[in-house]
Structures are given as structure tokens and as C-alpha cells.
């Protein structure tokens, strides 16, 4: 279900451009509004749909579940921590879905740039960057060098 933009609703803020993992949301050169430059390459992650503060990005549903004349729209409500979807079919039927986005308050997760830059020696560690702090635990179980195959550490 590739995404597309309602040009009259878009205000050209660039959030979708920033968030698109496929780098296919871009700004057009005539109106400075966002558009999907290559729907075939859309991963259908809907990051742009959810990130759009103007609700200007919509989804083209697959014919199997939403034949022509349908609409699939999403409303993200950060303050409630919910994301809602509405599928309207051409015969007037409507399906609504509401899901929680997350279990922590909006804005409470630290950005990677807020963490200290890892030391190059950390490459020899068995832990990923910022573990175990980022996991909110004291320590992770780790193998000692004698428990590993020779040459691994």
C-alpha cells in the first residue's frame, strides 16, 4: 500500500522526508510540497503517514481488501499514545482500528545523540552501545574469554 500526499493539506514541513527509510519522500520543485517519488519502492512502513503532523499522507489500499473508491487514513494522537486507522469502503462500510503506540510518555526516549560517544575500545566488548543502561538493567550476562572459541575475542 504505497503512500501519497494530499498537496492541499501538506505544508511542506519535511518530517516525511526526514523519516522515510527508503528515501522516496521528497519535496517537489514546483510547490515545495512533499510527494512520493517512487511508490514501487515504498516499504509500506507508514512512517511518513504516522509522522505527518497535517494528516496529509494517505495510503492506497490493496485491491484484495479495499477495492477502488476506498480510503485508508490514519490519525496519530501523541498525547494519548494512540494511533487510529479508518478504512472506508466504497459501499459505505467503515472499519476502525485503534492501537497503542508505546508504553512510555512521548518524548521520554533519549535520542542517540544524547548518549556519550562510545570509546573505540568498546568494539571489543560483547555489549552493544549503551548497554546495559539503555536496557534499564544493571548488567548483562557475559561469557568469559575461556568460554569462547579460540580466536573469537
Amino acid at each position, binding site marked *: 500500500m504505497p503512500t501519497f500526499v494530499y498537496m*492541499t*493539506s501538506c*505544508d*511542506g*514541513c*519535511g*518530517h516525511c*522526508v*526526514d523519516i522515510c527509510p527508503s528515501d522516496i519522500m*521528497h*519535496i*517537489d*520543485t*514546483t*510547490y*515545495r510540497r512533499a510527494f512520493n517519488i517512487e511508490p514501487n519502492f515504498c516499504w509500506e512502513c507508514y512512517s511518513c503517514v504516522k509522522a505527518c*503532523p*497535517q*494528516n496529509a499522507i494517505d495510503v492506497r489500499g490493496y485491491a484484495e481488501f479495499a477495492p477502488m473508491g476506498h*480510503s485508508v*487514513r*490514519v*490519525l496519530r*494522537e501523541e498525547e*494519548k499514545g*494512540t494511533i*487510529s*486507522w*479508518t478504512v*472506508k469502503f466504497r459501499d459505505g462500510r467503515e*472499519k*476502525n*482500528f*485503534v492501537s497503542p503506540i508505546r508504553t512510555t510518555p512521548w518524548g521520554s526516549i533519549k535520542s542517540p545523540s544524547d548518549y556519550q560517544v562510545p570509546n573505540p575500545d568498546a568494539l571489543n566488548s560483547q555489549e552493544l552501545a549503551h548497554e546495559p543502561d539503555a536496557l534499564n538493567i544493571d548488567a548483562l550476562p557475559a561469557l568469559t574469554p575461556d568460554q569462547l572459541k579460540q580466536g573469537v575475542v
Partner: protein
Amino acid sequence: MFTSNPFADISASIPPTIMQTYVVVMILLVAGGTLFDIVHKKSARYFFNHWQNAKDKGTRQVGGGEMVSLAIQTALVEGVTSGEFCNAQRRIAHLLTMYGFLAYVITTAIMVFWYPTPATPTPEILPLLWTIGALMVCVGGYWFWFFIRVDVAAEGNSTFRLVRADLFIVSLLVSVTLGLIWALVQTAGGGTWANVFLGLYLLATTVLFGSIPWSKFSHMFFKPAAAFQKRVEQANGSRRNLPPPADSPKIYGSVQRQPQNY
């Protein structure tokens, strides 16, 4: 410079009637360009089709009084305070540019039509407002151009890459900047440089008002209409097909019946 009417200063070399005719031609270009834009892009047809669709899908009728209330809300929130912007910096830059442009254009028209010569002394507030308006356009416009513009901020393109979407902001900034330089040179004594900057100022201004069918100038008429439409759709229950607020979902979850095991 700040309290001297630059248009009255050049009335000896350029008759006021020519300046007034130029202003009228610019107003006609704005009106004609906007109408051409509406017809060429079928904006009005799209707007009214969309309006009818939203009305058909609505769950309730919006009465005349409520419509007036929505129009006032649109004028106050989206019109006067640029409330549609989610980015605070963009909003401030837009407000600076919008109010600066209004002050600059209105005072230009007043000075050209009512105080065109030194024989009709200009109240000091008018050239002062003209200068402040032009400076506000420059502050908001250059801030937007160099730092906030999405082509630069999100797309990572060069600040100096020019595309058609830049026609409005570039012609506006060039026109206002040249106007300020011309007024400065004119007040400082005039001469050849004043004529050069006046010529460039008029050229940039003509491009600004004459390029409406190709530029984003007419967004100042379209955006309030789109904002009003959005509010009406919210009020009549069609909500642009968006889901209702999550407080009272009709169905929570994906299916009401138990899933089957195949």
C-alpha cells in the same frame, strides 16, 4: 531614510501619474494572475468538488451561524496567526514576512496615491512603517531562505539551488531588498546609482507581481480557503475520512469475533 517618502523624492523625474499607473497595473496583474491560476489549475473546480463530497459524507449539517463562526476561527487562527504551521520557527518567519509585506505594500500604495510629491508632506509614520515592513520581510524571508526552507533543512540541497518553487520568495526578497537600497541611495542624494537601483527595483517588483501563474504568490488566497474547508469537514463529521479521536473508538482492536484456527 526612515522618515522620508522615497516616492515623493523622485516625483520630479517620474510623474506621480506614472507611479500610480504602475501600482494599478501591479494590482491588475495580481487579480488577473490569480484568476488565471484558478482556471488553469482548476483549483476552484477541485475545491467545490471536494466541498460537495465532504458535504455528502458529513454526518450532520453545518448551519449558517456555525459557518460564520468557523470562518472567524479560520481568519483568527490560520489567517492572522499562521496557526497551520507545526514548526514554530517557520511560523515566526511566516508572520514576520506576511505582516512585513502587508505593511510595506499598503504604505507604498498610500504614499504613491495620497502623498506623491513633496507638496503634500508625508506623515513620518508612513515611510517609517514602509521601512520597518521591508526589514521584517528581509528578516523573515532570509531566515526562511537560508535556514528553514525544507529544500535545505530536510532535503539537504544547497542554499543557492534555485527551483520554480523559489520564484515567489526570491522575487519578493530581491524586490524588497532593492527597494530598501534604492530608498537609502535616494535619500543620500540620488544620482545615477539611485536610478540604477530604481530600475532594478521596478524589474524585480514586476517579476514578483507578474509571475503569479508560475509562482507561489497566490498561496495567500488558496491557503485560507483550504484551512476553512478543513474546519468545515471537521465540523460536519466527515473529518477528511480521518478516524475519530481515540477517546471513543467504536471498535477497539482488529476484529470483534474470535480468530479461527486453520
